[in-house]
Protein backbone atom coordinates (compact mmCIF):
# COMPACT_ATOMS: atom_id res chain seq x y z
CA UNK A 1 0.00 0.00 0.00
CA UNK A 2 1.30 3.45 -0.92
CA UNK A 3 -0.09 6.68 0.51
CA UNK A 4 -1.66 8.88 -2.16
CA UNK A 5 -1.20 12.67 -2.24
CA UNK A 6 -4.44 13.30 -0.42
CA UNK A 7 -3.46 10.87 2.33
CA UNK A 8 -0.03 12.44 2.63
CA UNK A 9 -1.77 15.75 3.25
CA UNK A 10 -4.44 14.35 5.53
CA UNK A 11 -2.03 12.46 7.75
CA UNK A 12 0.91 14.88 7.56
CA UNK A 13 0.82 15.57 11.31
CA UNK A 14 1.18 11.86 11.89
CA UNK A 15 3.87 11.35 9.31
CA UNK A 16 6.16 13.98 10.81
CA UNK A 17 6.07 12.26 14.20
CA UNK A 18 9.09 9.95 14.56
CA UNK A 19 6.85 7.42 16.36
CA UNK A 20 4.38 7.24 13.49
CA UNK A 21 5.75 8.17 10.08
CA UNK A 22 4.44 6.76 6.83
CA UNK A 23 4.94 3.23 8.13
CA UNK A 24 2.85 3.87 11.23
CA UNK A 25 0.14 5.49 9.12
CA UNK A 26 -0.01 2.42 6.93
CA UNK A 27 -0.41 0.30 10.07
CA UNK A 28 -3.33 2.49 11.12
CA UNK A 29 -4.92 2.24 7.67
CA UNK A 30 -4.76 -1.53 7.73
CA UNK A 31 -5.91 -1.88 11.35
CA UNK A 32 -9.32 -3.27 12.30
CA UNK A 33 -10.95 -2.10 15.51
CA UNK A 34 -14.41 -2.99 16.83
CA UNK A 35 -16.36 -0.76 19.21
CA UNK A 36 -18.93 -2.18 21.58
CA UNK A 37 -21.48 0.61 21.88
CA UNK A 38 -22.08 3.70 19.75
CA UNK A 39 -23.00 5.87 22.71
CA UNK A 40 -21.17 8.27 25.00
CA UNK A 41 -17.80 6.50 24.72
CA UNK A 42 -18.18 4.86 21.31
CA UNK A 43 -18.82 8.22 19.64
CA UNK A 44 -15.55 9.96 20.60
CA UNK A 45 -13.49 6.77 20.30
CA UNK A 46 -14.81 6.09 16.79
CA UNK A 47 -14.56 9.74 15.81
CA UNK A 48 -10.87 9.97 16.72
CA UNK A 49 -10.00 6.58 15.28
CA UNK A 50 -11.70 7.57 12.03
CA UNK A 51 -9.84 10.87 11.95
CA UNK A 52 -6.56 9.07 12.58
CA UNK A 53 -7.21 6.79 9.61
CA UNK A 54 -7.91 3.49 11.32
CA UNK A 55 -9.00 1.66 8.19
CA UNK A 56 -11.79 -0.58 9.43
CA UNK A 57 -14.05 0.29 12.34
CA UNK A 58 -16.84 -2.07 13.37
CA UNK A 59 -19.55 -0.74 15.69
CA UNK A 60 -22.04 -2.91 17.52
CA UNK A 61 -25.16 -1.32 18.98
CA UNK A 62 -28.81 -2.16 18.80
CA UNK A 63 -30.18 1.18 19.97
CA UNK A 64 -31.74 4.07 18.10
CA UNK A 65 -30.92 7.70 18.84
CA UNK A 66 -32.96 9.49 21.46
CA UNK A 67 -32.95 13.20 22.17
CA UNK A 68 -31.53 12.54 25.64
CA UNK A 69 -28.44 10.95 24.07
CA UNK A 70 -27.33 14.11 22.33
CA UNK A 71 -26.05 15.83 25.48
CA UNK A 72 -22.94 13.62 25.18
CA UNK A 73 -23.08 11.36 22.10
CA UNK A 74 -21.31 13.58 19.62
CA UNK A 75 -21.41 11.45 16.48
CA UNK A 76 -25.22 11.81 16.29
CA UNK A 77 -27.37 14.88 15.78
CA UNK A 78 -30.86 16.25 16.23
CA UNK A 79 -32.05 15.37 12.73
CA UNK A 80 -31.13 11.75 13.31
CA UNK A 81 -33.30 11.08 16.35
CA UNK A 82 -34.88 7.68 15.74
CA UNK A 83 -32.10 6.51 13.42
CA UNK A 84 -29.99 3.49 14.40
CA UNK A 85 -26.92 4.68 16.27
CA UNK A 86 -24.61 2.52 14.20
CA UNK A 87 -25.94 3.99 10.92
CA UNK A 88 -25.54 7.50 12.27
CA UNK A 89 -22.00 6.81 13.48
CA UNK A 90 -21.10 5.30 10.10
CA UNK A 91 -22.34 8.43 8.30
CA UNK A 92 -20.45 10.74 10.63
CA UNK A 93 -17.16 8.86 10.61
CA UNK A 94 -17.12 8.22 6.86
CA UNK A 95 -17.91 11.87 6.20
CA UNK A 96 -14.94 12.85 8.33
CA UNK A 97 -12.64 10.41 6.57
CA UNK A 98 -13.57 8.50 3.41
CA UNK A 99 -10.51 6.27 3.88
CA UNK A 100 -12.34 4.54 6.70
CA UNK A 101 -14.70 1.64 6.21
CA UNK A 102 -17.26 1.61 9.03
CA UNK A 103 -19.17 -1.61 9.52
CA UNK A 104 -22.46 -1.02 11.32
CA UNK A 105 -23.68 -4.04 13.29
CA UNK A 106 -27.25 -3.57 14.49
CA UNK A 107 -27.36 -6.37 16.99
CA UNK A 108 -27.57 -6.96 20.67
CA UNK A 109 -24.46 -8.83 21.71
CA UNK A 110 -24.93 -12.16 23.42
CA UNK A 111 -22.78 -15.10 24.41
CA UNK A 112 -23.74 -16.76 21.13
CA UNK A 113 -22.69 -14.00 18.72
CA UNK A 114 -19.89 -11.99 20.33
CA UNK A 115 -17.01 -14.28 19.40
CA UNK A 116 -18.14 -14.15 15.78
CA UNK A 117 -18.32 -10.35 15.84
CA UNK A 118 -14.84 -9.82 17.27
CA UNK A 119 -12.94 -12.56 15.49
CA UNK A 120 -11.98 -10.49 12.43
CA UNK A 121 -10.74 -7.50 14.42
CA UNK A 122 -7.36 -6.69 15.98
CA UNK A 123 -8.58 -4.70 18.98
CA UNK A 124 -11.87 -4.46 20.88
CA UNK A 125 -13.05 -1.26 22.58
CA UNK A 126 -15.62 -1.49 25.33
CA UNK A 127 -17.82 1.55 25.66
CA UNK A 128 -20.87 -0.30 26.92
CA UNK A 129 -23.15 1.14 29.57
CA UNK A 130 -23.93 -1.94 31.63
CA UNK A 131 -22.26 -4.70 33.61
CA UNK A 132 -23.60 -7.76 31.77
CA UNK A 133 -22.08 -6.52 28.52
CA UNK A 134 -18.86 -5.44 30.21
CA UNK A 135 -18.23 -8.89 31.70
CA UNK A 136 -19.31 -10.66 28.52
CA UNK A 137 -16.91 -8.56 26.43
CA UNK A 138 -14.09 -9.19 28.91
CA UNK A 139 -14.64 -12.93 28.96
CA UNK A 140 -14.89 -13.09 25.16
CA UNK A 141 -11.65 -11.14 24.74
CA UNK A 142 -9.79 -13.29 27.27
CA UNK A 143 -11.06 -16.52 25.69
CA UNK A 144 -10.14 -15.36 22.18
CA UNK A 145 -6.93 -13.51 23.13
CA UNK A 146 -8.03 -10.09 21.81
CA UNK A 147 -6.65 -6.86 23.27
CA UNK A 148 -9.43 -4.89 24.95
CA UNK A 149 -9.46 -1.19 25.78
CA UNK A 150 -12.08 -0.76 28.44
CA UNK A 151 -13.65 2.52 29.53
CA UNK A 152 -16.48 3.33 31.93
CA UNK A 153 -18.11 6.51 33.12
CA UNK A 154 -20.54 7.57 35.80
CA UNK A 155 -21.46 11.08 36.86
CA UNK A 156 -18.08 12.78 37.20
CA UNK A 157 -15.84 9.73 37.29
CA UNK A 158 -14.23 7.68 34.62
CA UNK A 159 -12.10 4.54 34.52
CA UNK A 160 -9.83 3.28 31.75
CA UNK A 161 -7.74 0.13 31.49
CA UNK A 162 -6.09 -1.84 28.71
CA UNK A 163 -6.42 -5.59 28.85
CA UNK A 164 -3.86 -7.68 27.01
CA UNK A 165 -4.94 -11.30 27.58
CA UNK A 166 -2.09 -13.60 28.73
CA UNK A 167 0.27 -10.64 29.27
CA UNK A 168 -1.66 -8.75 31.91
CA UNK A 169 -4.75 -8.49 34.02
CA UNK A 170 -8.36 -8.77 32.85
CA UNK A 171 -11.51 -7.01 34.04
CA UNK A 172 -12.30 -9.87 36.40
CA UNK A 173 -8.84 -9.59 37.97
CA UNK A 174 -9.93 -6.05 38.77
CA UNK A 175 -13.53 -6.69 39.83
CA UNK A 176 -14.24 -10.39 40.20
CA UNK A 177 -17.92 -10.17 39.51
CA UNK A 178 -20.61 -7.68 38.56
CA UNK A 179 -22.50 -6.05 41.39
CA UNK A 180 -25.91 -7.54 42.11
CA UNK A 181 -28.78 -5.75 40.35
CA UNK A 182 -30.10 -4.43 43.66
CA UNK A 183 -27.03 -2.28 44.09
CA UNK A 184 -27.07 -0.45 40.76
CA UNK A 185 -28.24 3.13 41.10
CA UNK A 186 -31.69 4.27 40.24
CA UNK A 187 -32.26 6.55 37.25
CA UNK A 188 -32.13 9.59 39.50
CA UNK A 189 -28.76 8.60 40.90
CA UNK A 190 -27.03 7.96 37.60
CA UNK A 191 -26.12 10.86 35.37
CA UNK A 192 -23.12 11.84 33.28
CA UNK A 193 -21.72 15.30 32.76
CA UNK A 194 -21.56 15.85 28.99
CA UNK A 195 -17.84 16.13 28.35
CA UNK A 196 -16.85 13.19 30.59
CA UNK A 197 -17.17 10.57 27.84
CA UNK A 198 -15.03 12.85 25.66
CA UNK A 199 -12.19 12.66 28.17
CA UNK A 200 -12.46 8.93 28.75
CA UNK A 201 -13.18 8.12 25.07
CA UNK A 202 -10.19 10.23 24.07
CA UNK A 203 -7.98 8.21 26.41
CA UNK A 204 -9.37 4.96 25.00
CA UNK A 205 -8.73 6.12 21.42
CA UNK A 206 -5.16 6.99 22.41
CA UNK A 207 -4.65 3.53 23.91
CA UNK A 208 -5.89 1.97 20.66
CA UNK A 209 -3.55 4.07 18.51
CA UNK A 210 -0.60 3.16 20.75
CA UNK A 211 -1.43 -0.54 20.49
CA UNK A 212 -1.68 -0.36 16.70
CA UNK A 213 1.57 1.57 16.40
CA UNK A 214 3.33 -0.53 19.04
CA UNK A 215 4.54 2.63 20.76
CA UNK A 216 4.59 3.74 24.36
CA UNK A 217 3.29 1.80 27.33
CA UNK A 218 -0.25 0.49 27.26
CA UNK A 219 -2.36 0.93 30.40
CA UNK A 220 -1.69 -2.70 31.29
CA UNK A 221 -1.99 -3.83 34.92
CA UNK A 222 -3.20 -0.34 35.78
CA UNK A 223 -6.55 1.32 36.24
CA UNK A 224 -6.65 5.02 35.45
CA UNK A 225 -9.26 6.86 37.47
CA UNK A 226 -10.37 10.33 36.43
CA UNK A 227 -12.23 12.63 38.79
CA UNK A 228 -13.67 15.48 36.78
CA UNK A 229 -14.70 17.58 39.77
CA UNK A 230 -11.18 17.54 41.19
CA UNK A 231 -9.51 17.40 37.77
CA UNK A 232 -7.40 14.54 39.06
CA UNK A 233 -6.01 11.46 37.35
CA UNK A 234 -4.85 8.58 39.51
CA UNK A 235 -3.45 5.22 38.57
CA UNK A 236 -3.73 2.14 40.74
CA UNK A 237 -2.12 -1.24 40.20
CA UNK A 238 -4.08 -4.25 39.00
CA UNK A 239 -2.04 -7.40 39.49
CA UNK A 240 -3.00 -10.36 37.35
CA UNK A 241 -4.99 -12.46 39.79
CA UNK A 242 -3.84 -16.10 39.85
CA UNK A 243 -7.30 -16.95 41.21
CA UNK A 244 -9.12 -15.04 38.45
CA UNK A 245 -12.13 -17.09 37.34
CA UNK A 246 -11.46 -16.45 33.64
CA UNK A 247 -7.71 -15.79 33.16
CA UNK A 248 -6.30 -17.36 36.35
CA UNK A 249 -4.43 -20.62 36.81
CA UNK A 250 -7.54 -22.75 37.23
CA UNK A 251 -10.28 -20.90 35.39
CA UNK A 252 -13.87 -21.76 36.22
CA UNK A 253 -15.23 -19.76 33.30
CA UNK A 254 -14.30 -21.60 30.14
CA UNK A 255 -17.29 -20.64 28.06
CA UNK A 256 -19.43 -17.54 27.80
CA UNK A 257 -22.51 -16.78 29.86
CA UNK A 258 -25.17 -14.09 29.56
CA UNK A 259 -25.92 -12.09 32.67
CA UNK A 260 -28.60 -9.99 31.06
CA UNK A 261 -31.59 -11.74 32.54
CA UNK A 262 -30.55 -10.80 36.05
CA UNK A 263 -30.69 -7.11 35.32
CA UNK A 264 -33.52 -4.70 34.96
CA UNK A 265 -33.41 -2.74 31.75
CA UNK A 266 -32.70 0.80 32.67
CA UNK A 267 -32.49 3.23 29.80
CA UNK A 268 -30.54 6.42 30.16
Amino acid at each position, binding site marked *: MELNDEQIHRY*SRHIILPEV*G*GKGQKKLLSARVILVGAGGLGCPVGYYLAAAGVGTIGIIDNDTIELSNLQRQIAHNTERVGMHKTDSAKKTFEALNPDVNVIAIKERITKDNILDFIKDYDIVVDGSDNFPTRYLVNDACVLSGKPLVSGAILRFEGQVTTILPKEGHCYRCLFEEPPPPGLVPSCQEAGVLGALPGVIGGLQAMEVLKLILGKGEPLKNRLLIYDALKTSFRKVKIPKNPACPVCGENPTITELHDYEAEYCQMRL
Partner: protein
Amino acid sequence: MEEIKPDKTINIKGLVCPYTFVKSKLAIEDMEVGEVLEIILDYPEASRSIPKSMEDHGHKVLKVEKINDTDWVIVIRKERE
Protein backbone atom coordinates in the same frame (compact mmCIF):
# COMPACT_ATOMS: atom_id res chain seq x y z
CA MET B 1 35.69 17.22 -1.74
CA GLU B 2 34.50 13.89 -3.02
CA GLU B 3 31.11 13.98 -4.70
CA ILE B 4 28.51 11.81 -2.94
CA LYS B 5 26.33 9.76 -5.20
CA PRO B 6 22.74 9.74 -3.96
CA ASP B 7 20.74 6.51 -3.99
CA LYS B 8 17.53 8.46 -4.45
CA THR B 9 16.62 12.02 -5.50
CA ILE B 10 13.34 13.80 -4.86
CA ASN B 11 12.25 17.13 -6.28
CA ILE B 12 9.90 18.91 -3.89
CA LYS B 13 9.95 22.33 -5.51
CA GLY B 14 6.65 24.12 -5.03
CA LEU B 15 5.93 22.42 -1.70
CA VAL B 16 5.80 24.39 1.54
CA CYS B 17 6.24 23.32 5.16
CA PRO B 18 5.35 20.91 6.62
CA TYR B 19 4.86 18.99 3.35
CA THR B 20 8.50 19.49 2.40
CA PHE B 21 9.49 17.47 5.46
CA VAL B 22 6.58 15.03 5.10
CA LYS B 23 7.74 14.11 1.56
CA SER B 24 11.37 13.93 2.60
CA LYS B 25 10.56 11.72 5.56
CA LEU B 26 8.43 9.36 3.48
CA ALA B 27 11.27 9.08 0.98
CA ILE B 28 13.88 8.25 3.60
CA GLU B 29 11.60 5.74 5.35
CA ASP B 30 11.60 3.62 2.20
CA MET B 31 15.40 3.55 2.00
CA GLU B 32 17.97 1.32 3.70
CA VAL B 33 20.26 2.49 6.50
CA GLY B 34 23.45 3.89 4.93
CA GLU B 35 21.76 5.02 1.72
CA VAL B 36 21.84 8.66 0.67
CA LEU B 37 18.86 10.88 -0.22
CA GLU B 38 19.15 14.04 -2.29
CA ILE B 39 16.38 16.62 -1.92
CA ILE B 40 15.87 19.53 -4.32
CA LEU B 41 13.61 22.28 -2.99
CA ASP B 42 12.80 25.96 -3.34
CA TYR B 43 11.08 26.84 -0.07
CA PRO B 44 13.63 28.92 1.87
CA GLU B 45 12.48 27.97 5.36
CA ALA B 46 12.72 24.28 4.51
CA SER B 47 16.40 24.68 3.62
CA ARG B 48 16.93 25.29 7.33
CA SER B 49 14.20 23.19 8.90
CA ILE B 50 14.69 19.95 6.95
CA PRO B 51 18.34 19.49 7.95
CA LYS B 52 17.43 20.21 11.56
CA SER B 53 14.47 17.81 11.57
CA MET B 54 16.51 15.09 9.85
CA GLU B 55 19.16 15.42 12.55
CA ASP B 56 16.47 15.24 15.22
CA HIS B 57 15.35 11.97 13.66
CA GLY B 58 18.93 10.69 13.91
CA HIS B 59 20.07 11.03 10.28
CA LYS B 60 23.27 12.63 9.00
CA VAL B 61 23.15 15.85 6.96
CA LEU B 62 25.94 15.63 4.40
CA LYS B 63 25.29 18.80 2.44
CA VAL B 64 23.08 21.89 2.27
CA GLU B 65 23.80 24.04 -0.75
CA LYS B 66 22.09 26.83 -2.62
CA ILE B 67 22.51 25.86 -6.25
CA ASN B 68 20.89 28.82 -8.02
CA ASP B 69 18.66 31.87 -7.31
CA THR B 70 15.74 29.80 -6.12
CA ASP B 71 16.81 26.25 -5.34
CA TRP B 72 18.66 24.33 -2.66
CA VAL B 73 20.00 20.81 -2.60
CA ILE B 74 20.13 18.90 0.65
CA VAL B 75 21.89 15.55 0.98
CA ILE B 76 21.03 13.23 3.87
CA ARG B 77 22.41 9.83 4.83
CA LYS B 78 19.95 7.50 6.54
CA GLU B 79 21.49 6.46 9.85
CA ARG B 80 18.67 4.51 11.50
CA GLU B 81 15.26 3.00 10.93
